[in-house]
């Protein structure tokens, strides 16, 4: 049970949140300009590092706000 620091509500149990995958992947400005391969890369692929990892969470059972978090995928420690 992770303790996730919601920037609005403070630390709360993981069960109050929903996970949103890798952070920092913007919806493409012009999807039509992208090849099928580029679109598939956006749609299906994400990084899978050992160590620091920037990810998205939403406090579904609290303030309902989305935010980014850096977590160590090896130890689950929250890095910021």
């Amino acid at each position, binding site marked *: 049970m992770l*303790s996730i620091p919601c920037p609005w509500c403070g630390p709360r149990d993981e069960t109050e949140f929903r996970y949103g995958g890798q952070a920092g992947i*913007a919806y493409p400005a012009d999807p039509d300009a992208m090849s099928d391969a580029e679109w598939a890369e956006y*749609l299906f692929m994400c990084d899978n590092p050992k160590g620091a990892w920037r990810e998205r969470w*939403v406090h579904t059972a609290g303030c309902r706000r*989305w935010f980014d978090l850096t977590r160590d995928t090896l*130890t689950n420690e*929250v890095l910021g």
Partner: protein
Amino acid sequence: MSGVRLPAGGDRIDRSLPIAFEFDGRALTGFAGDTLASALLANGVDIVARSIYDDRPRGVMSAGPEEPNALVQVERADGVSEPMVRATTLPLEDGLRAWSLAGKGRLAAQTDDARFDKRYTHVEVLVIGAGASGLAAAAATRSADPGARVLVLDADPGAAGEGVLADTTALGVYDHGYVTAVQRRPTPRTEGRLWHIRAGRIVIATGATERPIIVADGDRPGIMLASAAAAYVERYGVRPGARAVLFTNNDTTDRVVTVLRAAGVEMAAEVDVRRGESVVGTGADDHGRLASVAIARSPGGGRHETVDADLLLVSGGWNPNVSLWSQARGTLRFDERIAAFAPDRPGPHGRMEAVGAAAGDIADLGRIEPAWIVPPAADDPGEDAWATHYVDLQRDATARDLQRALGAGLTSIEHVKRYTTIGTAADQGKTSGVVASAIAAAILGQEVGAVGVPTYRPPVVPVSFAQLAGRDRGDLLDPIRVTPIHDWHVAHGAVFEDVGQWKRPRYFPDAGESMEAAVLRECAAARTGVAVMDATTLGKIDLQGPDAGVFLDRVYTNTFSTLKVGACRYGVMCRVDGMVFDDGVTSRLADDRFHMTTTTGNAAPVLDHLEEWLQTEWPALRVRATSVTEQWATVAVVGPRSREVVAALAPGLDISIGAFPFMTWRDAVIAGIAGRVFRISFSGELAYELNVPANHGLELWDAVMAAGAPLGITPYGTETMHVLRAEKGYPIIGQETDGTVTPQDLGLGALVSTKKDFIGRRSQRRPDSLRPDRKQLVGLLPVDPGELLPEGAQLVAPDADLGRVPVPMLGHVTSSYRSAALGRTFALALVKGGRDRIGERVSVPLAGRVVEATIAEAVLFDPENRRRDGEP
């Protein structure tokens, strides 16, 4: 072994409070403060179990949670039978009834109705173990930070001290200082309490557990961990035997010998590994109880002497209790000084530390000479050598099993554990795990530390499902949502179904009526007269802001910004992968305000979806989304005569077709209640969805029933709703779709705009989304009009050879019903390239037979939509 109660002594028992109990049907007595194990020993009961595979008699081996043998079936005072209860930690109670087991318990036949609860707490420091080291750590924390919340757990019922929660065992350590623990009998009426603790820092003060040295026939009743024998004397005034042999490799047994001698135990021999001596085997009496011990006085075997004894005290050293440490991914190292695995400092993530014996500081250990297993006597190696060197007594797993595992080429201790089952029983290998690693290391010719120990996992001690569930069972398992009209449905005999957390009427049977008959009757009423349904559970989202129209254009495949105030439009919503996610009707309330409806089960996910895109991709859009599902009661009045009912209820509303056309909505006063009327239809019939504030829902329903009574208005449920919509080919998200279906697959391509971008659009142009053999929604008419196809049935080509697997699948049935309007059965199905196969036959292989069906248009009833303004 001839255990007896001593005339005095025993600091945990109260001799003024005798307790009657039963074991295997025998009436026995003990004292308050006894465990079942101490009371059995006091009564001379030495065989407490038979082993699971080899049917060997077994006795009490320990005085704590590490017990592998004395696991009993207990009948609680409330009649519930509990399996595999450790006699060594079970407090004796008046009227307790217990039975011995042969390695397996029996599940109770009845539900466990005892009260179990849960508590949640946050502390700065959690200390696990209230021994001297644990209490010292707690005191040091308090003096350094008087404001800190400090909680101390201890498994012992008699544990005491400031902030100590006694009789409480930590079960597991999880991420970020999260610990679960079980407290037994927190109140007289509560059987147990599960604690969920979030701790800033965790101090592991769980002590150490003594381990045996493995010898041939070392599993007999009468063979006990040395410290356990002393515990029975000191705690319970029980002398576990009359004539003892000690087998040790360390100094902690010095005190045991003193205690036992003082209790009148005759020490027949003291065998010390450090002097080159060893116990090489044991002998038994007719009942299989320990009767003699074979001793070799010099290393390497040779001649051995036999000594009569009814008690063999074994100590192979002490293992720090590192399960919790290890669960938190703290690393271990083999500490030669104590010949055991101990926590490697520093602790994991700087949040955990170990102290005292748990950290490897074993008091009075002296010089220990590692000793794990004694070879069979040299004069009789025999065919069965090593076969009675029991390592894991609960699993009847032996040194020979370890030899076999390693002989088969296994090298990882994790594999060895699974192959031999050592350490997989209810005791989790508390006395056998490290010994098994050491024996494996010896066979492999490696250091013990290099072999390591298997991963420790929660729970540290067994815990019942009833305890884990607590009160979250039955009606309290999940919230139950009901509409304001629910009581009417109950009073009128509705049969309910669960839709998400909602209770919805499925159908309203007349007395003695079957579901099939009720649904045909309800369908006929909706198609020929007037019928009414409680549609309150429909998800409703209020969207406000100047950019609401633009936002809806992006989340729906079709266009909403052009919708006029007062109009409604059906929309399909996709995920970015292009697959259908939800559908529903959205109405424009004002230039900057829309009322969106969603499928009942999808209301929360749709709101989440909207929030995600608004917050993370388009924060500049000025739109707010709010759930109003529970603010509105919705009553659908359906059928060619529905206009008459609504006209009577809302006399101020111009209900003529010209003034109030299909797919529009109006403000209206309905039965005296200010609300909204939507002219939308999920059945193809003339229909009105009446919306009023939820607290007026029942009042509205009653008014509708009264106004419709002269017309024979018929209430209907979700089953009829499903049939009516399926006759019209309307898909239900989650039934016709499964996350791999595009709007085009559903035949809704006309609702997909080519003039704008929307979520999912680019994905719908991927080559895979454009394959001509994608599964498409079609109707399916069984050749036998009475044949009701099972939903989920697979479809194959009529000439398919069912004997050659895999048989190519063409698709599957998604919905299947009997239709009153069609006078026959019908189905909806997803079929590869289905729209080009209309008119073709498919085969439907069912259990033991194959039936034929014809592919048809998805819309089987009134394809021209001539009924939506009433009877044509």
